[in-house]
């Protein structure tokens, strides 16, 4: 049993969706995991390190959830190809740990039997055994072990120590890898797609095994069904959904206020500290006006992003998200989408990129393409900094009934995005995909309380992604912009602010010709250029442009009041309308290129979004001009 000199064996976790597989993965690996993509595709590849109490090392791979090896989605194809050893760049696993929901073996065991036929070393983890016990389900593990001819262990993925049986089994059951095994790995297994007779026979076998090993009282479904009677109700259900989303966005604004104020104060103090302790120089200008003002102004929105993701992850964990998909399926079907589009689109509220990637769970290509094309219309969190800045500067903090006016405006912007997405999807339905039927086949899992550790790990993952984006792309662009707006310096005896004579000023003034009809001044036009890389950069860019062009010293953290003083209300509204539509994100377009494997769709997307943005801003600006009595522009 010595682990010295032994290469880490590779394990995969394989199981149905909703069997608690990822929670088990989190329990086994803790924070020692890394998330990447499978080569060539963007299905999440989660790998982690696992060390047994005796010191045995394993590499653990969390495969995408699958109902069957007979794949109906890209996720399932990945799972099948990994266990078959047929995926390029991925070694065939040494051992498979099948994870099954112990409360739902009738559904889960079929996959176990299917995988067993591959003949790989394998064991079964009966997960959620605590719930099974609570429901009066008794499983004769010894008998099940005999019937399946593989080790069977109980696990409770949401409890500390809930995988101790699994770890103990790993200590003893795994054959030591033969020395010099590299290259001596088992060849790819042969696998034939089953036909109806195969599946029927397997299902009969499942029922025979269940009869022999599991005693289950009549399923007590009252708890779930009492909730579902309300949650899935056509009227109450939709009201609950609307209320949930509304609460989510109010929370994003109100809970985040305190941490945001703290970050603003901290960043401001840091900039001031640098400003007073460094000699007047280009370096000081770069640090204070470029890096601290730019990145600090973006970092401040991390609390909002985390709160948003806390809601999304909790809704996902609780089992509510698929129910929202159920509620919206027919409504989304009228514009040619499926209920499954809902989850990618909801993710797009955080960022279009994970949303576009999540569209892989939609097995139908046309549904998927439609979902991808409208994903950028969902108000992503990168737009929040822009919205928050402009709303904070131009919309008063008054209460309308019980609601905050600022919150209402934000809500209206989200609604505008959703409504236009539906309109675009409807147009796609009428032109591209006429009268085709796509399967839904969506599982509505039992309700569960979201689990703290899983939420935390999920949040950490998002925070890391956001901060890395801030750290890399945004920092680079802020510095580039600082350079563009600092050089060349103003000529002798110049009267305007220095930035007007810089490269950025020239570019902005050139763009102003295009943007003047929709009310944008040259400062905004400049900020839109680096904003192409990521929308939130526009805020940092405005900060840089205004910090550099203003004559006072106190502009570092005070962008909002400055904008309120220098922009008209129609300009502010026009910019809000612009950000509802604008294709202001090269990363999104790159993701679309990758996901559709063609330049056609990202170019199409950029074209239609730019057109919509310009039209919307134009209408908004003109209407607002008339309403505010500022008749001409």
């Amino acid at each position: 049993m010595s682990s010295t000199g032994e290469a880490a064996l590779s394990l995969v976790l394989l199981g149905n969706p909703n069997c608690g597989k990822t929670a088990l993965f989190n329990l086994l690996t803790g924070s020692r995991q890394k998330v990447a993509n499978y080569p060539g595709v963007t299905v999440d590849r989660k790998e982690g390190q696992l060390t047994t109490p005796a010191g045995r090392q394993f590499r653990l791979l969390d495969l995408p959830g699958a109902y069957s090896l007979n794949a109906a989605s890209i996720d399932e194809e990945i799972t099948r190809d990994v266990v078959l050893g047929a995926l390029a760049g991925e070694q065939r696993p040494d051992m498979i740990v099948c994870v099954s929901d112990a409360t739902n073996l009738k559904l889960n065991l079929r996959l176990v039997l299917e995988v067993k036929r591959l003949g790989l070393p394998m064991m079964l983890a009966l997960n959620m055994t605590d719930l099974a016990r609570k429901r009066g389900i008794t499983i004769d593990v010894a008998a099940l072990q005999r019937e399946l001819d593989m080790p069977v262990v109980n696990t409770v993925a949401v409890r500390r120590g809930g995988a101790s049986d699994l770890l103990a089994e790993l200590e003893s059951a795994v054959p030591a890898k033969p020395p010099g095994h590299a290259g001596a790995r088992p060849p790819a297994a042969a696998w034939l797609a089953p036909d109806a007779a195969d599946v029927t026979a397997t299902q009969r076998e499942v029922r025979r095994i269940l009869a022999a090993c599991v005693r289950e009282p009549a399923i007590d479904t009252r708890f779930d069904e009492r909730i579902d009677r309300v949650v899935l109700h056509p009227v109450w259900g939709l009201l609950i959904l609307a209320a949930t989303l509304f609460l989510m966005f109010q929370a994003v604004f109100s809970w985040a206020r305190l941490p945001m104020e703290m970050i603003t104060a901290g960043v401001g103090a840091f900039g001031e500290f640098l400003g007073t302790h460094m000699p007047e120089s280009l370096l000081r200008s770069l640090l204070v006006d470029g890096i601290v003002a730019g990145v600090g102004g973006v970092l401040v929105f991390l609390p909002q992003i985390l709160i948003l993701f806390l809601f999304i992850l909790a809704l996902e964990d609780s089992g509510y998200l698929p129910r929202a998909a159920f509620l919206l399926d027919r409504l989304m079907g009228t514009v040619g989408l499926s209920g499954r589009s809902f989850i990618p689109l909801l993710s797009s509220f955080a960022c279009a990129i994970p949303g576009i990637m999540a569209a892989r769970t939609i097995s139908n290509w046309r549904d998927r393409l439609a979902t991808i094309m409208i994903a950028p219309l969902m108000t992503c969190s990168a737009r929040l900094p822009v919205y928050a800045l402009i709303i904070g500067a131009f919309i008063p903090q008054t209460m309308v009934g019980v609601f905050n006016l600022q919150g209402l405006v934000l809500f209206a912007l989200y609604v505008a995005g959703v409504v236009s997405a539906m309109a675009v999807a409807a147009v796609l339905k009428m032109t591209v995909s006429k009268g085709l039927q796509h399967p839904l086949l969506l599982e509505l899992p039992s309700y569960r309380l979201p689990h703290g550790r899983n939420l935390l790990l999920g949040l950490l993952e998002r925070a890391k992604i956001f901060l890395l984006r801030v750290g890399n792309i945004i920092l680079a662009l802020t510095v580039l912009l600082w350079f563009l707006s600092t050089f060349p310096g103003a000529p002798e005896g110049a009267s305007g602010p220095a930035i007007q004579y810089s490269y950025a000023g020239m570019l902005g003034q050139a763009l102003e010709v295009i943007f003047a009809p929709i009310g944008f001044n040259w400062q905004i036009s400049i900020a839109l250029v680096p904003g192409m890389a990521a929308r939130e950069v526009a805020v940092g860019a405005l900060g840089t442009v205004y910090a550099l062009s203003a004559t006072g010293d106190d502009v570092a953290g005070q962008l909002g009041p400055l904008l309120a003083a220098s922009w008209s209300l129609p300009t502010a509204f026009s910019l809000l309308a612009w950000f509802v539509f604008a294709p202001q994100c090269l990363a999104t377009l790159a993701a679309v290129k990758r996901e559709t494997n063609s330049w056609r769709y990202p170019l199409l997307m950029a074209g239609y979004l730019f057109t919509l943005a310009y039209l919307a801003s134009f209408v908004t600006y003109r209407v607002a001009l008339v309403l505010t009595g500022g008749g001409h522009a």
Partner: protein
Amino acid sequence: MNGALELISLFDLPQGHEGTVSGGNVAAAGGDAARELALRLYEIGFVDGERVRVVARGFPGGEPIAVRVGGTIFALRRFEAERVLVAPLRNGRAKP
């Protein structure tokens, strides 16, 4: 069992009612897509003799339907539910 009763499509089973899946029909017809769908329905448990119950219906048009099969609820669209034939139970109304 309910051999005497007529078979109806799962989509036509009223909300809250129970039925028994009648096998040997879902995979009978259609092209590749229809066969794949039928296989998947088998795989997730819509096999001969299995009890099913319509838990909820969507809006508008009563579509999709949420069906309990075994210990799981699946949401199916109309054309998917119509691939499954069921024999309604005589006293099909489940206790509230």
